[in-house]
């Protein structure tokens, strides 16, 4: 492995100071002279025909600059990453309460909101369907004319019936998971401008500027090159800004008014209109031999994608891929449905379908261990995937597999070693303590079926510094700091000499998304190629300065050196000076395409994956048996990110992931009844706060280097929030003997389960 100066060391985030001091300008902080404020009219019903839209009174209100409807969308009146089934502005039908019908631009936010009340919409309410299983019936109201089943995945391998017949133990359960909210601190928001040539610039937190550019261009019927998108910085995203949010509305406002425009959604509007994690109902039947070998797994998942598809199709595929956990299972029958309803839209969310099925399968594994009287960690080690194994979809684990390393490190952790001692000391007689463990894997990259590509640029600046461009946006995960470290070690310069450019179609090439735990691997590999090309250009000038052949040039940290005569050196700064004198530029570009699994599943795109990150997590909980309340006292998180580019960054991801997974396990659910969102703000949607944090989260980084990764790195942004949820629910069982089959494990649910258990 190449010797590094920056990679593998704790480096303070490049955006830390501005974020901590509050001086960083997010998109919602930006303003321009003569700017108008936009507001969106949302639907009054979860399912209805639109008979008439009258904007006359709104247009007459003083201070209103424009009121736009579907008639004002010049291109395709639809958006959606996979299929454009969501109208920009609805014409004849609304399918959920977040549907947009009209767009107002006004001199102030207050006037814009006042104008919304003056828009008259005549509806004809339709019967709604809010249960995905009901939506699958032929008798159900249709959300879309194409049918309510958006995607169906079915994979069978081995002889499932024979495996169940020969099994020593079979566990069969149905699990329910909630509609978790991304709850980014900055709601969907942005600003836009337009110049005299009708070039549009949009500042809006997002996760793939080049795809946003294409979606905006499609809706406007414009050449994408006339639209510049800037996604960095985003005030949090977690997948919830992967899809279009307000970009098209901003573009429409500036196009129709020739004035800058700004839209900031309120938290309530963000909750109603924005993406969520897919709620899933998961039936799972798992068979094991007497020695704990998992023999078969039968899974049926029904996923509620709400009114529009967004990435619901790929999410169900990903869920099915991960539904047998990080285990060898030779006999599988796996089926998943992604279904339209009149509920809020679900889409990409950190974990991308793995969270739901991991909760189920990790509970199943604990149940099997209990029935067999087997240690919970041992059963995971026994069945855990190793390199060369065949995974559930029949694909070979060809890349690095660090699961065993994470399980062994977890086994040696203080929390696991002292578990009996720690459990024996509850805080009060009516409180009981338990320890839970769970592990998982997480596919990195977009999977098989579509080329997953990314580019990077490095340019020598006149002052001897380097401009490094990777367009995967900084959404809070710290990828820009990782890129600075990776670039500095590939270029061989100081991190202080890197000027980082991120998430801007105007200044970076297309590096793909900041999703799928892919940005560090993609951007890092592209930077490696870019640095190689940069070195070639540097060597040409250095050879001339040092009067040696180009083949004699070696690149060291900060300078070019003659291999044959090491005292002959020239600094990057000197080379930059000569570059300026000659009127030249020195720039390296790198283009990278992901390797993919050799296994092809006919008819499916996005599965299986080649690279996975691995993780084991442990939770110590205390359950109040009088109230059902669960407190997470301590947690251990053992991720395998490949090479940890910035260990401090991995630790930050790990701690944030643990708390996000804790909220998923214990408190968070966006409750929608008959299409109406009831939990519209953080007063009723219960997020963990600083007071709910475990008093200690120990992160142990278990690196299993990935040869194809930059310095051995994979990705870790998602896995960190996945197995902690079943670790917590398994800990509840360890504490008081009840299995939680529905999350969040609220005090009411735990209390009810405890009471049911008491009944003989």
């Amino acid at each position, binding site marked *: 492995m190449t010797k590094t100066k920056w990679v593998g060391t704790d480096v303070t985030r490049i955006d830390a100071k501005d974020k901590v001091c509050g001086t960083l300008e997010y998109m919602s902080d930006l303003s321009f002279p003569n700017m108008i404020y936009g507001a969106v009219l949302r639907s009054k019903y979860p399912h209805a025909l639109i008979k008439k839209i009258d904007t006359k009174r709104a247009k007459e209100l003083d201070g209103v600059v424009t009121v736009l409807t579907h008639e004002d969308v010049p291109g395709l009146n639809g958006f959606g990453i996979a299929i454009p089934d969501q109208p920009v502005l609805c014409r004849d039908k609304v399918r959920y309460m977040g549907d947009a019908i009209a767009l107002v631009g006004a001199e102030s936010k207050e006037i814009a909101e006042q104008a919304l009340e003056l828009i008259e919409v005549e509806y004809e309410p339709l019967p709604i369907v809010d249960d995905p299983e009901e939506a699958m019936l032929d008798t159900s109201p249709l959300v879309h004319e194409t049918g309510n089943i958006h995607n169906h995945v079915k994979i069978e391998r081995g002889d499932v019936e024979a495996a169940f017949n020969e099994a020593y133990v079979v566990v069969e359960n149905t699990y329910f998971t909630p509609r978790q909210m991304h709850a980014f601190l900055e709601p969907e928001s942005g600003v836009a401008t337009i110049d005299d040539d009708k070039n549009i610039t949009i500042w809006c937190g997002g996760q793939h500027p080049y795809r946003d550019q294409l979606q905006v261009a499609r809706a406007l019927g414009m050449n994408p*090159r006339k639209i510049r998108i800037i996604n960095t910085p985003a005030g949090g995203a977690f997948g919830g800004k992967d899809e279009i949010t307000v970009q098209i509305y901003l573009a429409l406002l500036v196009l129709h008014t020739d004035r800058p425009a700004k839209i900031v959604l309120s938290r309530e509007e963000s909750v109603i209109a924005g993406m969520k994690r897919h709620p899933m109902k998961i039936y799972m039947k798992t068979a094991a031999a007497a020695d704990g070998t998992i023999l078969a797994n039968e899974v049926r998942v029904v996923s509620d994608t709400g009114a529009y598809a967004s990435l619901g199709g790929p999410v169900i595929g990903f869920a099915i891929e991960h539904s047998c956990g990080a285990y060898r299972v030779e006999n599988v029958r796996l089926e998943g449905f992604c279904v339209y309803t009149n509920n809020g839209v679900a889409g990409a969310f950190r974990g991308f379908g793995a969270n739901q099925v991991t909760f189920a399968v990790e509970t199943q594994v604990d149940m099997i261990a209990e029935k067999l009287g087997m240690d919970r960690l041992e059963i995971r080690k026994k069945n855990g995937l190793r390199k060369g194994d065949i995974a559930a979809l029949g694909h070979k684990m060809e890349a690095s597999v660090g699961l065993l390393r994470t399980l062994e490190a977890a086994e040696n952790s203080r929390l696991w070693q002292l578990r009996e001692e720690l459990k024996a000391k509850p805080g009060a007689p009516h409180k009981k303590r338990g320890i839970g463990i769970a592990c998982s894997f997480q596919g990195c990259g977009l999977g098989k079926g579509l080329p997953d590509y990314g580019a990077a640029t490095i340019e020598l600046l006149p002052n001897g510094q380097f401009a490094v461009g990777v367009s995967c946006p900084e959404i809070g995960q710290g990828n820009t700091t990782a890129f600075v470290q990776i670039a500095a070690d590939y270029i061989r310069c100081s991190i202080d000499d890197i000027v980082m450019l991120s998430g801007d179609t105007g200044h970076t090439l297309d590096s793909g998304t900041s999703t799928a735990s892919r940005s560090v691997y993609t951007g890092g590999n592209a930077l490696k190629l870019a640095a190689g090309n940069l070195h070639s250009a540097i060597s040409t000038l250095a050879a001339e300065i040092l009067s040696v052949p180009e083949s004699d040039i070696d690149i060291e940290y900060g300078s070019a050196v003659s291999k044959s005569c090491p005292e002959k050196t020239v600094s990057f700064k000197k080379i930059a000076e000569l570059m300026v004198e000659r009127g030249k530029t020195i720039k390296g570009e790198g283009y990278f395409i992901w390797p993919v699994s050799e296994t092809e599943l006919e008819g499916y795109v996005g599965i299986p994956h080649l690279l996975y990150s691995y993780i084991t997590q442990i939770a110590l909980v205390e359950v109040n048996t009088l109230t059902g309340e669960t407190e997470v006292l301590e947690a251990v998180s053992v991720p395998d990110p490949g090479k940890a580019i910035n260990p401090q960054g991995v630790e930050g991801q790990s701690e944030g992931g643990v708390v996000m997974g804790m909220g998923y396990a214990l408190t968070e659910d966006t409750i929608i009844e008959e299409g109406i969102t009831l939990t519209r703000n953080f007063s009723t949607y219960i997020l963990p706060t600083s007071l709910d944090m475990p008093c200690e989260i120990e992160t142990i980084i278990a690196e299993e280097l990935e040869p194809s990764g930059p310095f051995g790195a994979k990705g870790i942004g998602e896995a960190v929030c996945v197995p902690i949820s079943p670790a917590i629910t398994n800990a509840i069982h360890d504490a008081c003997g009840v299995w939680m089959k529905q999350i969040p494990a609220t005090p009411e649910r735990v209390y009810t389960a405890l009471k049911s258990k008491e009944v003989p």
Partner: protein
Amino acid sequence: MKVNVCLFGPMQKYGDKDKFQMEFEEGATLANLLDRLKIEDRIYIVILINGRRAYDEDEPLSDGAEVLIMAPTGGG
């Protein structure tokens, strides 16, 4: 010159096969290739030429070039 074309996902409808070769005269551009394939919707499309994203239709083709045509996507 001969150009190798590969269609992915929804773009596969524009070819009888997913992978095929096309022949062009010198000086041909990406626009000529898209015309020949009768791809009308050219906004929501991603094209890689020899692994590099092609941003404009007037990008020139070269002999032996690998042209990958796909719809934008996402995933996890």
